[in-house]
């Protein structure tokens, strides 16, 4: 076996730039760490072996918390996906861990036969099967890497370390990606916006088409702020359990005052915009279910039916009313 690479426990400028890339979606799905064995500090034969995923943000979160620790890091090939999602997809599995244990010849390196697994790998890793697969037994450590030093000292994790959280900060870092994922859809919708704004008494008259297009685009951006920024940030304080209803409420509440402040918009035009903003905001909020750590598949399938029904009806009504309004003004 060759030398085991020692990784820095402080993140440099390049690491931070990479984080920006991953958080905005620019380089989100192409940021992997080479699977295999790494170390922090000066580990020996008795040092703990920490197992983790090969996603950049995961690897950084792990190593930056280990400044005071001597440990081996066994990084499995989770295809550049975080621990929890990879375990759900089946790539962070017992078989993959066992494969890396053998490939890195871990039994020659350490005298003990224990692996410390991230707790959130439990949906894909049956810890009791590891022993027969690779000779090492698996033990679930804390959920967050930041609790590892304490866990290694105490030998066990507290209830708080075993409970998943979703704090304001944890929600805020997700917002850039929520916004960036919308750009492509928005770009595809622009020709449709232009088409619907051009229909009127004077077909595609330049001035009215452009000004109505601008109003429609601005209203859509308001919906984006409501559904992709405000709902995630204000999540625990927005009433309703169903995310589509949260998005509808926040979208409508944010847009109504703006609508009242623009009296030159007619009633039909205003109604069309309100329907459109509510539908968009509702849809974006509903998509945020995938970013939360507490929504069940059964629950989301359930709310999808009512949510999509509202969003599609409202969007359809808006698409009819918007060109119609041009004939009334």
């Amino acid at each position, binding site marked *: 076996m060759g030398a085991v690479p020692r990784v820095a426990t402080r993140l440099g400028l390049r690491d931070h730039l990479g984080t920006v890339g991953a958080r905005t979606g620019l380089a989100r799905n192409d940021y992997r760490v080479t699977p295999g064995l790494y170390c922090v500090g000066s580990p020996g034969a008795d040092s703990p072996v920490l197992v983790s995923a090969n996603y950049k943000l995961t690897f950084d979160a792990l190593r930056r918390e280990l400044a005071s620790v001597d440990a081996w890091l066994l990084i499995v090939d989770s295809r550049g996906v975080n621990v929890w999602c990879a375990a759900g997809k089946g790539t962070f599995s017992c078989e993959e861990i066992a494969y890396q244990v053998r490939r890195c010849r871990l039994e020659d390196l350490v005298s003990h036969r224990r692996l410390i697994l991230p707790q959130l790998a439990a949906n894909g890793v049956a810890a009791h099967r590891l022993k027969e697969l690779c000779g090492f037994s698996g033990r*679930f450590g804390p959920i967050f890497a930041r609790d590892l030093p304490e866990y290694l000292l105490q030998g066990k994790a507290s209830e708080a370390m075993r409970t998943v959280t979703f704090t304001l900060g944890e929600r805020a870092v997700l917002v850039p990606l929520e916004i960036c994922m919308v750009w492509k859809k928005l770009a595809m919708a622009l020709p449709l916006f232009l088409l619907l704004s051009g229909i009127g008494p004077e077909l595609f008259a330049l001035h009215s088409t452009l000004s109505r297009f601008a109003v429609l685009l601005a209203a859509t951006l308001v919906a984006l702020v409501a559904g992709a920024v405000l709902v995630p940030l204000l999540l*625990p304080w927005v009433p309703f359990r169903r995310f589509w209803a949260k998005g509808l409420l926040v979208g409508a509440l944010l847009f109504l005052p703006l609508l009242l402040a623009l009296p030159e918009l007619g009633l039909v035009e205003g109604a069309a915009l309100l329907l459109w903003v509510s539908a968009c905001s509702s849809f974006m909020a509903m998509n945020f279910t995938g970013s939360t750590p*507490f*929504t069940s*598949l059964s*629950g989301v399938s359930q709310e999808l039916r009512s949510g999509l029904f509202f969003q599609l009806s409202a969007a359809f009504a808006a698409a009819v009313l918007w060109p119609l309004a041009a004939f009334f003004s």
Partner: protein
Amino acid sequence: MRHFRYLEDAAILRLDTDKCIGCGNCVLVCPHRIFALRDGKAAIVDRGACMECGACATNCPVGAIYVNPDDGCGCAAYIINSWIAKVRGKPSSGCGC
């Protein structure tokens, strides 16, 4: 996670107490702490908080826990994409999460 509750009756989760050997794996791994050991057996103490991640069922050595086995996660984009894939007869493009 007391501040974050989702649809209380939606999750599909069953525990067969007769099979349970009281090892406590489910109590340990659940990220929402919905299990507890009572009289040497596991018990579901907060069913409404279950998100169907499946950690308990995966780590139950005697197969006493059943969780919604459908592939996928609690993500609207993922479910919509798999519906579309079903209609088009092509493999799902996932949701990028």
